[in-house]
């Protein structure tokens, strides 16, 4: 595997390989000294054109725990403000000798372009509405940690699917691993066409919740919504939010997930996020181990795992 751009590049076997390797890095992360020398001498740079806390910190922590050197690039303090193009920025960074570039950009496809411009490995940390593969991998790992396997699980992905790269990567990953995915959203927050998506669609959350093994709530992405897609946030919460009353419909083993950052009181009630079935902080913890696994596979293993 040379780059990680899309979940589709991995395929079911590649995903399994990442998840298996993640077990090792969960063990490493639990140690008193959570660090191994596997990527000593490698340099990983994060190139983030969009705001991020958890993904950037998570990648950086992962790289550091593998003993790689990290460099950080954020738009606000860089030459991008002087009008430098993405291509020139990438060329400049690559000229300093980096082994991997972690890219986030508000436009879909940018990581693919970056991969054409550099010899370094490229990891997609989110491109527009398109994909966020490491999020999908850490979600698969978190579900597997609780339920052993995704095969046959009923997963409801609820909320702003239209603007969500998390939803796109997760639909791919969950279905590749054999889960049945149902999207639950108002029609205005679904993509214009779902042709080719291996999913069912519902507009009735109360009907879906009792049958779901996993309820995956998406963040209401108000910064990406350019038109009036909802009458009001209160109406959205009333129909599609996981409120305290609605949480009573959940099965005892049902897992509640959210990619963060949460809008408490909008898509998820404040106290629901702290229920025993909520694995939201596990997702964050597993994120570091999953990203260690991905970095190791790409930079360290010397193996060839497709892609």
């Amino acid at each position: 595997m040379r780059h990680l751009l899309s979940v589709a590049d991995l395929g079911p076997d590649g995903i399994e390989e990442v998840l298996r390797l993640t077990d090792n890095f969960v063990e490493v992360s639990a140690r008193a000294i959570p660090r191994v020398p596997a990527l000593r001498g490698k340099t990983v740079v994060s190139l983030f054109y969009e705001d991020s806390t958890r993904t950037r910190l998570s990648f950086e922590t992962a790289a550091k725990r593998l003993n790689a050197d990290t460099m950080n690039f954020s738009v606000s303090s860089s030459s991008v403000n002087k009008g430098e193009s993405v291509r020139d920025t990438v060329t400049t960074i690559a000229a300093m000798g980096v082994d991997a570039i972690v890219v986030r950009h508000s436009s879909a496809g940018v990581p693919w372009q970056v991969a054409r411009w550099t010899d370094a490995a490229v990891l997609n940390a989110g491109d527009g509405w398109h994909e966020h593969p490491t999020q999908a991998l850490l979600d698969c790992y978190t579900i597997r940690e609780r339920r052993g396997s995704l095969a046959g699980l009923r997963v409801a992905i609820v909320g702003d699917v239209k603007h969500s790269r998390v939803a796109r990567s997760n639909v791919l990953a969950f279905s590749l691993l054999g889960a049945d995915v149902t999207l639950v959203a108002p029609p205005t927050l679904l993509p214009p066409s779902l042709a080719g998506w291996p999913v069912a669609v519902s507009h009735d959350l109360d009907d879906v919740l009792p049958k779901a093994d996993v309820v995956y709530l998406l963040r209401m992405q108000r910064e990406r919504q350019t038109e009036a897609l909802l009458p009001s946030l209160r109406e959205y919460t009333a129909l599609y939010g996981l409120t305290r009353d609605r949480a009573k419909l959940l099965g005892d083993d049902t897992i509640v997930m959210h990619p963060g950052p949460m809008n408490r009181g909008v898509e998820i009630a404040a106290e629901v996020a702290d229920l025993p079935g909520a694995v939201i902080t596990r997702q964050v913890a597993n994120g570091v181990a999953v990203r260690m696994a991905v970095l190791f596979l790409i930079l360290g293993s010397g193996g060839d795992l497709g892609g």
Partner: protein
Amino acid sequence: MDAEDLRRAITRIAHEIVEHNQGLAGCVLIGLQTGGVPLSGRLAEALKQIEGVDVPIGTLDVAFYRDDIGLRPVLPEAVTDIPFELTGKAVVLVDDVLFTGRTVRAALDALNDYGRPRSVQLAVMIDRGHRELPIRPDYVGKNLPTRRDEMVDVTADGVDVGTMEKRAAQR
């Protein structure tokens, strides 16, 4: 070596471990993934027969500590499991075959990240020579001169020496 020879060698190594450490106080066994793991289990059984003590057993995978990462495919075989404190213990590393010594070097680095043992000893079933590092075993089942291109397999049935071609043909 057949299965009987293997059993006798394990019993002898167990006696040597007891003698060398003047008992088993503070001793732990750590099997290297993957070949050392079954051997460490059998050594622990032998030690129990001799001294009546259950010696703690752990397993160690050294993939992340290898010096050939990036040069060849390196993937861990299993998750390291050391469910006890190492600091102050006498650790006996157990592996099936000692060859270049690079796995043992990686294992010594890895142990450092788990604690500071009082001492580290090395037990191997086969020492086949060709060392590339200043490492020697404390307990050896058998010294077995080999050519570099030969393969040595240790199973419950005994020890088998072959070539790459022979191994490929058996698959």
